[in-house]
């Protein structure tokens, strides 16, 4: 059975599972489901830039925060519906991504240094917004409570669930199409060996910038969704380094550079976190220790992620190894 077929069947199965999920979930589990999908969207966004194109980002919060702040500021100040704000936010994030990428690559920052640069940009934006009074500064922005679908607010969490499900599906389809296109092949070439790719005529800078921009746009969609779902944002929430981590962990667990890795990773890590919180209530901090230990175990014993591992199984002989 080839990868194409596996992908198709998995996609169908996942879609069915995703669609029927809310009918079996109570509100608490639905809330976890939404958190899984936010992590999955962030993970897929990170996957484009870091998993496929090999440009490791440690500051995805910057795009998430820009998405959240653009749509929310446009909404609360000018009454622009967040549906439109979301698209503008994605555009702004893509542009900022391109600028960050251009500056970094212009000065030949690579690998770890590039990762550090993204981390620095996330901090710069956090401090910038924290000190911009017109954006609410440190007080943050409270979104009016209207429950009007035209304003990207819904009475039922089920609707929120389906909205984020659509975004995750979009991101996944984008990656599926990308990985088969010339763009995807060029990105993989750049990830493998940038110089060799350049020697073969690949416009390295251009493709890297495309990867960063599209990745940033999806992260911004997640940011707008977060703002609308929770109704309140401040710089320490949406530009937090924990958001950047939330983008990376699903990929590490599920397998970065694979189509379904981040989905699987998010589906595993978010419920796991919740279970740890529920099980170890008596002694504070144990939940974090267990959660950390699981991640360490994955990195030690399954460095390619679950999906990477499975894809290595080849026939009966390979399976035993």
């Amino acid at each position: 059975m080839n990868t194409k077929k596996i992908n198709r069947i998995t996609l169908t199965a996942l879609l069915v599972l995703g669609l029927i999920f809310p009918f079996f979930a109570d509100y608490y589990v639905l809330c976890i489901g939404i958190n899984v999908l936010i992590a999955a969207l962030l993970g897929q966004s990170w996957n484009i830039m870091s998993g496929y194109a090999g440009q490791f980002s440690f500051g995805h919060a910057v795009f998430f925060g820009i998405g959240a702040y653009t749509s929310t500021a446009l909404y609360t100040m000018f009454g622009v519906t967040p549906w439109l704000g979301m698209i503008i936010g994605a555009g702004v994030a893509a542009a900022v991504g391109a600028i960050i990428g251009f500056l970094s690559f212009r000065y030949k920052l690579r690998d770890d240094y590039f990762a550090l640069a993204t981390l620095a940009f996330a901090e710069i934006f956090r401090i910038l917004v924290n000190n911009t009074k017109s954006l609410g500064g440190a007080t943050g922005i409270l979104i009016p409570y209207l429950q009007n679908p035209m304003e990207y607010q819904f009475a039922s969490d089920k609707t929120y669930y389906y909205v984020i499900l659509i975004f995750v599906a979009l991101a996944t389809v984008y990656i599926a199409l990308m990985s088969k296109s010339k763009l995807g092949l060029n990105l993989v070439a750049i990830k493998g060996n940038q110089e060799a790719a350049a020697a073969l005529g690949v416009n390295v800078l251009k493709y890297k910038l495309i990867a960063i921009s599209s990745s940033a746009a999806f992260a911004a969609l997640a940011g707008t969704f977060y703002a609308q779902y929770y109704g309140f944002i401040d710089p320490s929430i949406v530009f937090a380094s924990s958001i950047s981590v939330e983008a990376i962990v699903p990929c590490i667990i599920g397998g970065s550079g694979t189509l379904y890795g981040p989905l699987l990773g998010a589906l595993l890590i978010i419920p796991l976190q919740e279970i740890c919180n529920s099980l170890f209530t008596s002694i504070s901090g144990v939940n974090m220790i267990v959660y950390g230990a699981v991640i360490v175990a994955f990195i030690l014993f399954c460095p390619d992620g679950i999906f990477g591992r499975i894809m290595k199984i080849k026939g009966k002989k390979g399976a035993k190894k």
Partner: protein
Amino acid sequence: MKRLICVLLCFALCAGLMFSLTGCGEEESSDVIRIGSIHPLTGSMAYEGQALVNSQKIAIDRINEAGGINGKKLELKVVDSLGTAGGAATAAQKLINMNVCALTGTYTSGSAQVVSRTAEKFSVPFVVTVAASETLLTNGYKYSFRIQPSTVTFSQNFIEYIPSIKTDDMKTVAIIYEDSNYGAGIAGYIEKNIEKTGLEIIGMIPYSASASTLSSEVTKLVALSPDILIPVGYYSDQNLLAKEIIDRDVTFPMIMGVANGAFSDAKFTDTYGTAADGFFDINYRYNPNSDEADYLLNKYRELYGEEIPVCAIYGYESIMVIADALRRAGTADHEALREALAQINMTDHLLPQNEILFDEAGENINSAGVLIQIQNGKQVIVYPKEYAEGEIIRKGEGKE
């Protein structure tokens, strides 16, 4: 085929994992009334979060020992907010699933904003234990109530109190504040309203709460040499500031914190002893004349082996407020409880204020901070008069 099975199996397992959370502790019981508590029990605010939960437990035990509410026992359901807004929202959902009659929390303003929205969505009453943000109750929510003074109240208290506290030769003010929601909020309000007091601001110095030293900020202050210094910040950063001031032996005619996380804390005076004598702070506190406060302070010391952190009194009071409303409502029904909370008129409480009454937005109308001064290494309430434990000691007085 094998790969496909593996893939599908993985997803199925993970989905199963999620559903394993369904119905977490949902068993319905008719002789118990549950109250939900959302506080940070891990991370940098775990100490305060745990203290709030501890004092809530003291309140619950006290009520249950006295026979419960209308024959039913109270039960506290605690869920860790992880100190994040998202964590607090999930915690709220989880508690609502457990059939709690009301939610309490959350210590940080971001979390409180998110929980108040969830409470509104599900029509569950939410009583804020500690969260001072001025915008918290500005969205017209019907189910959220706050007992503690907001940043605006503290700032107003300063504007009100200062004319009768300062001496006539004091003219200038400098504010040093941490630059987040809370510090910047208070500093901004005071700056806007300072002319009412006849004083003049000659310096506004922001700093980050995570700063490792405030040395250059103190140098700036020395150069400004204001008559009144207003420091606003959390425990650890204000501790740094005080250390710098005390170590360098810098003096200002008056140091008056507003909602200062350090000056009102028993740990602070344990550290500095009489070296911090003379420092003022406008902050929340218990009423020293209240028997209930005595009970809470002693019980906390007995059970947890230390002085109660001041913020934790709101943990106790939040439960008492809900209990009062439950008694009058006669049921744990959300709608009836909300109605009873909105109509509360509670005189029997441990706060330094008149009766607890909520306005339309859900703010405690009579909430107020008190002015404390550190005297002989102890916090003493010196203003307003009806709660005062001692007189104000002016510079140069009181020391032999």
